[in-house]
């Protein structure tokens, strides 16, 4: 069976799996942003915590991805939850380090000026520091997303959803005719999903950056 035949026959299935894959990445990235940005703010403001937070998140990047996903199987069982937990941890480091870098890049003069205008610490953060640090933070999120889209293909091994299932199915039936098509199809779809996310980030970055610094 040739590859185009396979595509026309499994197009719907690949589309379905791609949606699952995108969903998995979106949920994991959402959680990673919700955890990572506050941790980055903490690391920036409470300098004593900075080394612990950054080295802790850095360790997650060193741990083999299959191990990071598998360790949650005893806790959550097989399926999407261990995949989401592992991917979220994997995504943290670039988000945290870019949040810190972005906040540190805000000119001290601007911080002083906003304090002079009578802004409190939290208002200053929300109205001045975070908007100015935003382009750097969103770049961290983009880097994380690229890594997570690829690693999400491993989620199938812990029973998770997404395109890894197509690759895994092909891998398990290697030797039978047409099995390699499943692997090619699944891999190609992951690459396309990665490019779609990257394109989306160019738009998001453009439309969410405050007009003054665009």
């Amino acid at each position, binding site marked *: 069976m040739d590859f185009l035949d396979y595509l026309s026959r499994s197009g719907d299935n690949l589309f379905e799996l791609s949606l699952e894959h995108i969903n998995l990445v979106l949920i994991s990235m959402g959680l990673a942003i919700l955890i990572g940005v506050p941790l980055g703010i903490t690391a920036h403001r409470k*300098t004593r915590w*900075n*080394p*612990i937070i*950054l*080295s802790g998140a850095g*360790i997650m990047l*060193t*741990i*083999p*991805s*299959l*191990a990071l996903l*598998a*360790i949650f*199987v*005893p806790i959550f069982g*097989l399926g999407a939850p261990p995949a989401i937990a592992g991917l979220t941890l994997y995504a943290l480091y670039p988000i945290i380090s870019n949040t810190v870098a972005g906040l*540190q890049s805000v*000119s*001290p*003069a601007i911080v*002083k000026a906003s304090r002079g205008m009578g802004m409190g610490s939290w208002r200053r953060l929300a109205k001045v520091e975070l908007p100015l640090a935003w382009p750097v933070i969103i770049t961290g999120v983009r880097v994380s997303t*690229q890594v997570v*889209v*690829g*690693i*999400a*293909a*491993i989620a199938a*091994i*812990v029973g998770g959803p997404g395109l*890894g299932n197509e*690759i895994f199915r*092909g*891998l398990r039936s*290697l030797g039978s005719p047409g099995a*390699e098509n499943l*692997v*090619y199809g*699944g*891999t190609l779809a*992951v*690459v396309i999903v*990665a*490019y779609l996310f*990257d394109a989306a980030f160019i738009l998001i970055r453009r439309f969410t950056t405050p007009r003054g610094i665009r």
Partner: protein
Amino acid sequence: MAVAPAPVVETESKQSQTRKKLALFGTPIFIITVLLATYLWISSLELDSIEMRVLNKEVLTESLMEHLYLTGISTALVILIAIPLGILVTRPSLKRATPFVLGLANAGQAIPSFGLLTIVVIWFGIGVQGVIFGLVAYSTLPILRNTMIGIQQVDKSLIKAARGMGMSTRQVLARVEMPLAVPVMLAGIRTALIINVGTATLATFFGAGGLGFVIFNGIQLNRDPVLVTGVVMVSALALSVDYLAGVIGRLASPRGL
């Protein structure tokens, strides 16, 4: 930016110093503690016959050795391929190819490790050899990219100064550009090691063993002690390799930097 950023810089260097100290002493203590705790936990359990089949000295040592072998050979091959290629592509005569190769290296990052490994194994056959080719294919691009960026960021005025001192282009490469790019290349080797330790965990799906075997066995047989042992062993291996590569990298960097 006329306002003196001096205090910011100072706290930053203090932070990175604490981080370095934490990494230098904290990492080995952390690894040993986790390994010891896992060992004590596993030995306190009454293992059933299925768990005993994997959790014994022979199987665990064999998986570890297979993992080290896959990582070592593939990293050596990547260094042999990617670093000379990176130097070659940044030579003045080939400068026009640089953005093209960098673009390719960036675009290639979107390919998932699991998919690429499977494809390469389909081409070269199931087993150790196919997996090693797959690991090399996956880690070559990032290391190539690292080498090229390392050489590109060497200050151009230093190269001009060396030329002015009467060095030939080859001498400039050997005595100025290469030594200055050493830290970046060492970082690249470290990255290659980490990528390969991690990706070699998938080797078990292609009949090449490794510590992934222990993890996947634990998943398939629904035996948490087996799974946790695999996870802890492979994570400890990755963290130790990263730690040792970092320490060696610091010792091997030219002193002037």
